[in-house]
């Protein structure tokens, strides 16, 4: 098996900002271990094969550097979970004094 442990999954969940429950950790650790074990088959491929990241033969697609309309502030804020004084209101950042 790929040896993904329950602790590994807890670590991945922290990195991915997912506050998973203990019951989920039990379920996910077995499943993710089995999935990673299966997909690890790609390890058989020789190292000298070049990678393909995307299939469109285009690079550095740029538009002319001209001002174009963008979202109005009230439209951008309309679906915000919280807004104040024309800005997104967000919770405090960890470690800051209130």
């Amino acid at each position: 098996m790929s040896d993904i442990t329950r602790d590994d999954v807890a670590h991945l969940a922290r990195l991915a900002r997912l506050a998973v429950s203990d019951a989920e950790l039990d379920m996910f650790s077995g499943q993710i271990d089995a999935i990673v074990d299966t997909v690890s088959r790609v390890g058989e491929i020789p190292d000298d094969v070049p990678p393909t990241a995307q299939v469109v033969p285009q690079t550095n697609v740029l538009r002319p550097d001209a001002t174009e309309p963008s979202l109005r502030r009230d439209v951008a804020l309309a679906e915000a979970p919280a807004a104040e004084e024309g800005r997104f209101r967000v919770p405090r950042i960890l470690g800051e004094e209130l």
Partner: protein
Amino acid sequence: MSASELISLDAAELARRIHAREVSSAEVTRAHLERIEAVDGPAESGVHAFLHLDAEGALAAAEAADRAIADGAPASPLAGVPIALKDNLTTTDMPTTAASRILEGWRPPYDATVVARLRAAGLVPLGKTNLDEFAMGSSTENSAFGPSRNPWDLTRIPGGSGGGSSSAVAAGETPLALGSDTGGSIRQPGAVTGTVGVKPTYGTVSRYGLIAFSSSLDQIGPCARSVLDAALLHEVIGGQDGNDQTSVSAPLPPVVEAAQAGARGDLAGVRIGVVSEFSGEGYQPGVLGAFTDAVRVLGELGAEVVEVSCPSFGYALPAYYLIAPSEASSNLARFDAMRYGLRVGDDGGHAADEVMSLTREAGFGAEVKRRIMIGTHALSAGSYDALYGKAQKARTLIVRDFTAAFETCDVLISPTTPTTAFPIGERADDPLAMYLADLCTIPSNLAGNAALSVPCGRSADDGLPVGLQIMAPALADDRAYRVAAAYEVARGADTAPRIPELRALETTR
């Protein structure tokens, strides 16, 4: 003309009658809204293709189309024809949820390019269709709002992720729909519901306004009940868009012309390759039987059918389940509870990163969490070379297999998916079994070429629809349409009705 006749007509025929003013777009739209009302609910037992209906908006769009036609100026060949939109395409006038609690009720500030184009073409958006959450799945069972059901057997899945669009088209709730295909999410639902589903060449249909799952694989495409209808819709939505940097400048292949040419039923001089790897163990006998019949029909149309081997296609599934989750883990990082969508735990006691974690825990379903964590793992320093890096190398080998096969063949064919529609619940707790539904469709996402699924009769063992997949080189989508249209005509009508009756669901009015 009766409402039941209107809902069984193809989009091309509906458009002809609407433009000849034999019937109005408003009447056609009302007939489909009535069909939806009759068979879509309740969510627990109906087809449940729609997450949101906009009857008022649809009738207003239909009346506008009727006025333009009365003035002698229909906006496009499909003006006045109803359409359903997968709910991962942004719409300013309807909520867009991606079937996730994290976006429940969200009203996007802009229309997706494809939505803007079909509005400009005078089509009539009916509503938003169900999907696996963020398009991650093969059955719609991962929708936060409950699964859609296969109109041919309501105990079975309609495919996924675009099972809402496929079931709506199959049930006669709409003649057309849009889907998005990252690993087969248009084609596999098309196959299991007996409808046509097309994944265009990557980059030929703008992804602007498609909620991103795996950006190097995602492609929007048409769902319909005929090959010509899919082609007509394809030409409405396709073409370069300055809002999508991966949008290609090459002209859109002439898919409508190809569908019309194919319908004349001559495939002389066309070389068709049967992918030998997509057969054998794991394939339902009835699916292989229907596929063998299709190969015979294609030969009778004058095509030369040969076997080709694509030995690296065996790496497609593992590579996909590394690349797609990796890109998803990055794309879904935007759901951070700060600018839009759900926010949980903002009570003054939790810091921003805790609010993010609580929100994502509450807002994402199990499959989305699994894929985010697999992607996070595949991209982590200790695993990147062995997992993500190797998956990208696998992608190169798959591109090479296609290149070699297309040197000797004009198109490649296979069953679209190894089995017919499986019962709801059968694979829900076994992600790896679920992933096998995409076995034959994934290579074309990894390589970016065009591929479609066209109905291929019924499986002899369970009577359910089977799909024939036709793959064409990048920017040669027209070849797939030509072969599909020829096959569609040669196979003739199913002995089964065009759309299911669904009498048990008809509400008494």
